[in-house]
């Protein structure tokens, strides 16, 4: 227990006090985040999900530097190439190492398109998720902390929750496409539009969860103590409340990322997403549905990427929820 040699002839009383003579703690102090990581490690699905998310993020970020083919380059001689693996069962298939995942009907390289599409999908997903989190946290904290704002903000949240989201998204995107395109260019305008409509329609769950936690937290003694030494409301929220609601926010962040990616793909699939020369996974999938009998891989590859990313994010959220909950942790 201790490095000190126990003096000879020590009786029982000194022995019980031995622990008190430790110069330093016998074990390294454990931080909260180390505990969280220890619990998180046990969730195999979450590890896999997190790993896949990191992998796909790196792949779409660094991909264009490794696979330098321009996704928009038309190569009409090499159109309709099949992926390289089709050669395994079909020796007559038109394959080539120049385009390992094949090309589309205009000869654009599929791998380069998937990387570019992944960039767009992930960018939309992350941006919309961050926007939704910021709004949700803001509404949640304000309505949880300030009693006067609570009633009206929560009624407003309830009202927004009862809006029909998908129809409204469709309406908003089709109707505001033109002016935003005129102001910010075809890609920039669509990006702003899609991110803001998804963000503005998915903050409600976060707001409710954060509000509930803040309501419980602000009655605790440490908040009373902070207030008694004259801490301002802003400082209480920043220093004491926000760090304590990080875990529910992180869990809803993962769910938000998953829904944002799916919603963007759904909008692209319904034909109201990005312009056709700007690939996203949903767009690639939607464009190839017409010819999926001859070229099923053009539907399956982006579809698998969307599904695996969302699956990974969902598993990550599951693991985070377990790891961040101190009641479950350590079991």
């Amino acid at each position, binding site marked *: 227990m201790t490095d000190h040699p126990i003096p000879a002839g020590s009786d029982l009383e000194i022995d019980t006090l031995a622990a008190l003579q430790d110069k330093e703690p016998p074990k390294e102090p454990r931080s909260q985040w180390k505990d969280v990581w220890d619990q998180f490690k046990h969730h195999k*699905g979450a590890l896999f999900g997190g790993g896949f998310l990191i992998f796909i993020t790196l792949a779409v970020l660094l991909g264009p530097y490794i696979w330098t083919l321009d996704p928009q380059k038309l190569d009409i001689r090499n159109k309709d190439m099949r992926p390289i693996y089709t050669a395994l069962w079909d020796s007559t298939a038109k394959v080539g190492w120049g385009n390992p995942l094949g090309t589309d009907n205009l000869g654009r390289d599929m791998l380069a398109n998937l990387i570019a599409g992944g960039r767009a999908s992930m960018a939309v997903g992350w941006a919309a998720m961050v926007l939704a989190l910021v709004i949700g946290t803001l509404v949640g904290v304000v309505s949880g902390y300030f009693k006067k704002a609570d009633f009206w903000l929560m009624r407003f949240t*309830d*009202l927004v929750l*009862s*809006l*029909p*989201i*998908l*129809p*409204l998204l*469709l*309406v*908003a995107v*089709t*109707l*505001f496409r*033109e*002016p935003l395109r005129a102001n910010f260019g075809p890609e920039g305008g669509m990006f702003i539009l899609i991110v803001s409509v998804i963000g503005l329609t998915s903050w409600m769950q976060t707001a409710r969860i954060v509000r509930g936690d803040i309501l419980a937290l602000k009655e605790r003694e440490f908040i009373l103590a902070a207030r008694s030494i004259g801490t301002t409301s802003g400082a209480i929220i920043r220093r004491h409340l926000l760090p304590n609601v990080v875990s529910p926010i992180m869990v809803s962040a993962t769910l938000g990322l*998953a829904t944002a990616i*799916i919603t963007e*793909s*759904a909008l692209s*699939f*319904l*034909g*109201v997403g990005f312009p056709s020369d700007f690939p996203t996974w*949903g767009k690639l*999938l*939607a464009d190839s*549905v017409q010819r*999926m*009998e001859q070229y*099923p891989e053009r*539907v*399956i590859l982006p*579809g698998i990427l*969307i*599904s*695996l990313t*969302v*699956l990974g994010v*969902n*598993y990550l959220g*599951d693991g985070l929820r377990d790891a961040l909950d101190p009641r479950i942790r350590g079991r």
Partner: protein
Amino acid sequence: MLTFTIRRLILSIPTLLFISLVIFLLLQLAPGDPMAQVPLTVPPEVKEKMREALGLGQPIHIQYLKWIIQFFWIEPQVLVDHWFGTSFAEGKQRVISWQTRSPVMDIVVQRIPQTLWVVGLSYVVGILIALPIGIYSAYRQYSVFDQTGTFITMIGFSIPPFFTGPLLIVLFSVQLGWLPSIYDTTHVVTDWESFKVQFMQMVMPVMVLALQTTAQLSRYMRSSMLDNLGQDYVRTARAKGLKEGVVVMVHVLRNSMIPVITVIALGVPAIFGGAIITENVFKVNGIGQLLLTALFANDIPMVMTLTFIFAILIVLFNLIADVLYGVLDPRIRYD
């Protein structure tokens, strides 16, 4: 309970008014011009008259008020006339579609059965699959069945319907040739043969939608069963010698169903929304597909009415869920 229901009903009126205002303003702010398709040779004063004929000459608040009156006062009258053969709505202005110049509600009524068949059936199928899976995986927690079940529901959660749809079409329509890929809404069931055709064409859209329902519901069912299986009353029931089947299927299941039923009620509007994509994939001409075509054709009255119908569904089923929760669980008292 009755007072609670009445209060919620009254509260839902301002909610619906707010939603209708949001939808209306959104459509008003939109830059689309219904006159854009009119040839340039039409003189401006004629164009102005056409505009007024569409009800566009009035200020915004008058337009909103008129729409409210048309939707909440005249359309129900038309319905009453249709049912009882009266003539309340005779000669009154209804909500007119800009695409077809016919009343919006008539088209909606034509389209709703297709949506209801596919969506309703898929929901029932989804529930019927989800409940047993949820019950069994909770009863054998952490067993192989539970682990696979959790994994499959996670996949069902994550694979979007616009991917499963084409995937099933490639597999069953193209490769195997078992099922038709396009839903034929003109098909009439008269005998066994035509019923088989109808059944075949419904299998895929129903299963795609049901997968989403199953994934969500079985997770709820499982966690609700787990909450109840550890309760004292379960031990009591076992201790007094009840059979295991009775304990699980009667005592535990009945208590676990309370939250699940509200989730089922809350999920109905969402599945109508999700049907927009599925209808698009399988070419079902239901109200989701109607909404899409109306959007692309800039048919604002149609879009407005359909979006509002979705909103009414959400508000209605939220209300039903709240009331059901109070009715089923005697511990819940609203006052």
